[in-house]
């Protein structure tokens, strides 16, 4: 099959989706892949899923048995410190498809966001990276009450408006 490209010299890549699916499924690091994709969304990164997944699988070779937390730290450290050397190959067409242009588009953003993430992780822990874990014993009432209490502490609140088009 062909994947359409919006950047680079070629207009499309010749690849095989089944090979990709198998490559990811058999990687042994699907949890890390899921979390990196969540991290991507939470940080507004425009990183192509296809290439990001291949990158994670490649960087975690030999680390399948490691705890997910350590896998993630390893990934972010690589993104931050080894930016220029990051590379991936299409498992379905390794010599035919050059994924470098796609990776180049996201390389420095990955590095910058990874840097901030590692700093936040060190200073504030995992909740700063992936958000608060909901403790829903009270049906969320505690969280709602907390939000309401927040309003009292706002010194100069502003009111929303709506410009009519």
């Amino acid at each position, binding site marked *: 099959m062909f994947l359409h490209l919006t950047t680079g010299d070629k207009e499309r890549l010749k690849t095989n989706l089944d090979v990709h699916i198998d490559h990811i499924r058999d990687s042994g690091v699907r949890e890390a892949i899921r979390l990196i994709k969540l991290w991507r*969304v*939470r*940080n*507004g*990164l*425009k990183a192509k899923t296809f290439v990001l997944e291949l990158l994670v699988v490649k960087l975690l070779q030999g680390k399948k048995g490691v705890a997910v937390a350590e896998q993630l730290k390893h990934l972010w450290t690589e993104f931050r410190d080894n930016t220029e050397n990051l590379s991936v190959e299409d498992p379905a067409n390794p010599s035919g498809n050059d994924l470098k242009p796609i990776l180049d588009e996201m390389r420095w*953003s990955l590095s*910058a*966001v990874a840097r*901030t*993430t590692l*700093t*936040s992780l060190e200073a504030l822990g995992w*909740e*700063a*990276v992936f*958000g*608060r874990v909901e403790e829903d014993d009270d049906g969320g009432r505690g*969280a*709602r009450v*907390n*939000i*309401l*209490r*927040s*309003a*009292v*502490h*706002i010194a*100069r*609140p*502003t*009111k*929303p*408006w*709506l*410009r*009519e*088009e």
Partner: protein
Amino acid sequence: MREPHLVEAIRDDLGRHCPSLHLYIEKEKAEARGTFPVRGPEGEVADEYLVTIEVPSRYSEDLPVVREVGGRIPWTADRHVNANGEACVLLPDARWESFPVGAPFLEFLAGPLHSFFLGQSIFESTGKWPFGEWSHGRRGILEYYEMLLETESTEVIAGFLWMVSRREVKGHWDCPCGRGKRLRNCCLEKVLDLRKKIPARIASRSFRVLERSSAAPAR
């Protein structure tokens, strides 16, 4: 955005206040994307929204353009979001109170933007806006100036807005308050004070919105 020092200042402010919100410069367009935190009374993250914040080329004269992109807030008027997804975080005429032109980006994040999303969280739970809300469009502009100028006259409000929108004002002009005196013998200080607070472009736009039913004051 043409000024590198502004870009760096915004990056610093984001890093300090919202570490999951990042400034991306793509094709000369500057946009912050990621997760905006709503903070609880002890500064803890109490809620979060996925957002984009476009930093306009005429920042900080123009306000950042905010969109919630996580699909949590419907793009409807009752949630103060336009059909194109743009959130009306605050009335531009009122920005001098919380985020005046030239203020650091951090003041936008910690001030109007935080109030907006905190308000959205509370509205979700209670159906009420914790800090109130301005009516939409023209009515909201009038409400604001009725409060600020302590008048209910649309004509008077339009008159003051007209004066704020001028490049300069002349003391011999008729005072917009309608008491029949010259400006220099009446509300000159009030007009000058307004001119410091409200940018001429904003006043001009609000005047145009109102002038459908008001005429410009006599000179």
